[in-house]
C-alpha cells in the first residue's frame, strides 16, 4: 500500500493536532520538586527537623488543627482533623471532636481518638520525640470515645492550639503503623495528609502519591517527585531545562532576579523570616561591659546588610524576635552610629579598638553576611577575627562557649514565647543541663517570659512579651541584623490553590488543590 505525501502530511497533522488537544485537556499531573539535599533524613514528624524533611512531612500529615494553607499567622488556625473544640474556663482542659471517616494512608484504616492520644503522648515522650520539651505542660491525654479526645494541662501554655497544629509533634500518626513498622516508620511513615509515601529511591528522590481517600477530596496532582539536587547551580539548570517545576531557591536578590527572567517562571518569597542576630555572651569580657555591646550595636548598619542580601528576599528586623510572631513588638534597637560606637569604646577603655575572635560556620549564605558585619565592625575599631569551621563543628563549638559572639539565623514557631525561651531564658543557656540556644547567657527577661507563658489574659501576655523584648534590646544581649525570607522558584502555571504568604514547613504547602493550569 502506498501513501501519498499529501495523505501522510494530513495524517501527521491530525495526529499532532489530537496530541496537542489532549495535552491541552490534560494538564500535567506530576509535580517535580528540586530540593537541596542528598537524601531524606527522618520523615517521622517527631524527628523531622531539617528543611528537607519538614517540607515533605507538611504534605503527608495533618494536625488536630492547622494553619490556613499559605499562612503561618496563629490567628488563621482552623479545624483540621478536629472539627471543633472547646476549653474549660481556666484553659487547662481541652476537648476535641474529631472528623469521622478520615483515612490513613496505605489502608491503615480510619483515624480515631486512639491514634490522636498515641501521637500526642509519643510527641511528649523524650525517648520517642525530639520535641518532647514543647509538650511538657501536658498532664493527660485521653480518648473519651472514638471521636473525642480530652487533653489536660498541668499549667497554661501560650497557645495550646499551636501545639496540636500541623507542625512538629502536633502531627497525627497511625498507631498501628508506628507499632508495625518500627524503625522503618522513620522513612516510610503513615499519615492522613493529601500525599502518601510511595517510594524512596536512595539518594535520588522520594516519590509521593496522591492519597485517594483524602478527607478533603482526592488531590488534583497524581504524584510528587521530590528530587534531591544538592548543587544550587544544577538545581537552577534542571529548572531552566524543565526537569523540575518547583525548587528551593537562594536568599539572594540576584538569584530571584535571574529566575524571574526564565520563561514561565515565578519566584515566591514568604514567611517565616529567619532572624539573623549576633548573640553576645554578656558574661565574658569585654562584652560584660554594656558599653562594648552598645558599640557593636551602633556599628551595625542594618540598611546596608538588607541591601546586600536583597530588598525582595530580606527585611529590616524590628526586635530580638522575628516580625509577625504573636507577641512581637517594636523594640528599642540602637541605630547605626559609628561616632557613638567609637566613643563608647573609648569610654569602655578601648581607645585603640579591640580584637575579638569568633567562630563561624562555613555555610556560604551565613558567611557572606558575616563578612559584611566584619567590615562594619572594623570601621569603628573592632577587629573581628573569624575562625571559619564546617557547620557541624560550628554547632558543637558555639555550645561550648568558644565564641563570645555567635551569629545565628533562626525561625521558630510564630509565638513570642518559643523564641524568647529558646534564645533568652536562663533555662536555655548553653552548657547547662537544660540548654537550648541561649548563647547570651542572659536571664534578665526570665520573669516576663515565665509570667507570659502561663497568663490567661491575652493583653497582659502581649505586654509581658513586649517588656521582655524591650529589656533584651536595651541590654544589647543580641544585635538583630536582618531577616531572611524563604525563597522558592516555580513554574508560573503551577497553582498552589491558596495565596502563599507563609509556611511553617519552610516550603510551599502542596495540598489537594495544587495543580498545573
Amino acid at each position, binding site marked *: 500500500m502506498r501513501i501519498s505525501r499529501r495523505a501522510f502530511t494530513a495524517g501527521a497533522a491530525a495526529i499532532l493536532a489530537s496530541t496537542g488537544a489532549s495535552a491541552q485537556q490534560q494538564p500535567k499531573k506530576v509535580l517535580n520538586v528540586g530540593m537541596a539535599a*542528598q537524601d531524606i533524613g527522618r520523615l517521622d514528624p517527631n524527628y523531622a*527537623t531539617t528543611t528537607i524533611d519538614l517540607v515533605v512531612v507538611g504534605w503527608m500529615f495533618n494536625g488536630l488543627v492547622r494553619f490556613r494553607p499559605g499562612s503561618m499567622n496563629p490567628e488563621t488556625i482552623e479545624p483540621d482533623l478536629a472539627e471543633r473544640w472547646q476549653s474549660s474556663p481556666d484553659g487547662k482542659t481541652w476537648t476535641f471532636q474529631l472528623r469521622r471517616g478520615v483515612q490513613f494512608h496505605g489502608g491503615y484504616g480510619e483515624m480515631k481518638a486512639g491514634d490522636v492520644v498515641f501521637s500526642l503522648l509519643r510527641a511528649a515522650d*523524650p525517648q520517642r520525640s525530639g520535641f518532647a520539651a514543647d509538650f511538657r505542660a501536658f498532664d493527660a491525654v485521653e480518648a473519651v470515645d472514638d471521636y473525642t479526645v480530652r487533653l489536660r494541662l498541668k499549667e497554661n501554655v501560650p497557645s495550646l492550639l499551636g501545639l496540636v497544629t500541623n507542625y512538629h509533634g502536633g502531627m497525627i500518626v497511625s498507631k498501628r503503623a508506628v507499632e508495625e513498622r518500627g524503625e522503618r516508620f522513620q522513612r516510610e511513615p503513615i499519615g492522613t495528609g493529601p500525599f502518601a509515601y510511595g517510594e524512596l529511591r*536512595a*539518594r535520588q528522590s522520594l516519590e509521593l502519591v496522591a492519597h485517594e481517600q483524602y478527607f478533603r477530596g482526592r488531590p488534583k496532582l497524581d504524584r510528587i517527585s521530590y528530587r534531591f539536587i544538592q548543587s544550587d547551580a544544577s538545581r537552577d539548570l534542571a529548572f531552566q531545562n524543565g526537569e523540575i517545576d518547583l525548587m528551593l531557591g537562594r536568599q539572594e536578590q540576584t538569584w530571584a532576579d535571574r529566575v524571574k527572567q526564565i520563561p514561565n517562571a515565578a519566584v515566591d518569597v514568604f514567611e517565616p523570616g529567619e532572624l539573623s542576630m549576633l548573640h553576645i555572651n554578656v558574661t565574658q569580657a569585654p562584652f560584660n561591659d554594656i558599653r562594648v555591646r552598645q558599640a557593636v550595636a551602633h556599628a551595625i548598619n542594618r540598611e546596608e546588610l538588607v541591601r546586600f542580601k536583597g530588598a525582595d528576599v530580606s527585611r529590616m528586623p524590628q526586635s530580638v524576635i522575628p516580625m509577625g510572631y504573636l507577641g512581637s513588638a517594636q523594640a528599642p534597637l540602637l541605630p547605626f552610629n559609628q561616632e557613638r560606637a567609637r566613643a563608647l569604646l573609648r569610654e569602655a577603655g578601648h581607645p585603640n579598638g579591640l580584637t575579638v575572635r569568633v567562630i563561624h560556620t562555613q555555610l556560604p549564605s551565613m558567611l557572606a553576611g558575616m563578612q559584611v558585619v566584619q567590615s562594619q565592625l572594623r570601621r569603628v575599631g573592632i577587629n573581628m577575627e573569624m575562625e571559619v569551621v564546617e557547620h*557541624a563543628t560550628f554547632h*558543637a563549638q558555639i555550645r561550648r562557649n568558644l565564641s563570645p559572639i555567635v551569629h545565628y539565623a533562626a525561625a521558630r514557631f510564630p509565638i513570642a514565647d518559643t523564641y524568647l525561651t529558646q534564645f533568652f531564658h536562663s533555662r536555655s543557656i548553653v552548657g*547547662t543541663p537544660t540548654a537550648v540556644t541561649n548563647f547570651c547567657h542572659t536571664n534578665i527577661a526570665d520573669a516576663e517570659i515565665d509570667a507570659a507563658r502561663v497568663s490567661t489574659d491575652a493583653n497582659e501576655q502581649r505586654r509581658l512579651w513586649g517588656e521582655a523584648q524591650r529589656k533584651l534590646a536595651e541590654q544589647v544581649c543580641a544585635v538583630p541584623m536582618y531577616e531572611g525570607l524563604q525563597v522558592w522558584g516555580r513554574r508560573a502555571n503551577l497553582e498552589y490553590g491558596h495565596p502563599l504568604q507563609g509556611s511553617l514547613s519552610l516550603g510551599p504547602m502542596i495540598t489537594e488543590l495544587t495543580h498545573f493550569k
Partner: protein
Amino acid sequence: MGRYILKRLAAAVPTLLAVLTVVFLLVRVVPGDPAQTILGDQATAEALAALRARLGLDRPLHVQYFEFVFAALRGDLGNSLVSGRPIIDEVVAVLPHTIDLTLAALVIGSIFGIPLGIWAAMHRNRFIDYVTRIGSLLGLSFPVFVSGIFLLLVFALHWRWFPVIGTSSSADFGDRMHRLVLPAVNLGLIMAAYITRVTRSAMLQVLGEDYVRTARAKGVPRRVVVWRHALRNALIPVVTVIGLYLGILIGNSVLTEIVFNRPGLGKVIVGALNQRDYPMLQGLLVIYCFLIVVVNIATDLTYGLIDPRVKHA
C-alpha cells in the same frame, strides 16, 4: 592465581583494621554531635542526652570500638545513625552508580588517553605533541565542577541532548546510559589527560630502546613496531596509573556526583562526615578500602596479561 588473590585479600585485613581504628578515633575527635544533627538546633540538652543514650553514644569509647569491630567481622556494619537504615543497604543502593560512572570514565579516559599519548610520542616536539601536551595540561588543571557546569550549559541547556539530572529511576538501560554520558565525559576527560601524559612519556622511553631500533632497522613496519613491540612494554606504567586513579576516582568523584546529581559512594562519605554519622562513615570507609584492595589486585593481575614475564606466585 586463586591462591595469590586469597593471599592478597588476607594481607589487606590488617590494613582494613588499621584504617578502621584511625577512622573510628578521628571522627570522634572532630567536634560535632550526631544527636544534634538528628534532633536539630531546637533540641534541649535533655533530649540530646536521651538520644545519645539510645544510640549508644554515651558508652565508653573502647566498648563502642570493640562492638563495632566484632560486628564488622561478622559482616554487620550496623545502621546509619541518621537514617536508621542498615549501612550495607545504603552502600548497595549507591554502589552501582559509582561503578557505572567509574568504569565509563575509565573507558573514555583510555580510549582517548592511550592513542593521544602514543600519537604525541610519535610526533615528539612537533605541533601535534605541543597541542596534546597543552590539552592534557588543561584537562588536569580544569576543576571538575567548572567543566561539569560547562558541559551542562552546552549539552543539556543549549543543545538539549542530555538531561541535567544525571540519574533516572527508570529501569530502561538506554535511559541510564544516556544520563551517564555527561558525568562520564566530565570525569573521563580528566582521566584521559592523565593517561595521555603517562602514555606519552612511557612510549618515549620505550621508543628509544635498542630492540625498537633493531626492529626498525630490520624493516618492521612502523605501525607494527609501535603497536606490537613498543606499546605492550609501555603499558605497565599506564596500567599502574589507571589502577591508582581508579581507586581515587571511586571516592573522589563527589564533585561530579553533586554537579550531575548522581548518587555515589563519594557523596555518601562526605554526607556521613557532615552529619557525624559515625557508623556510616566507618562502614563506608571499610568498603572503600576493600574496593581499593580489589582494584590493586586487578591491576597486578593485568600486569601478567600485558607482560608474560610477570608471574603471580
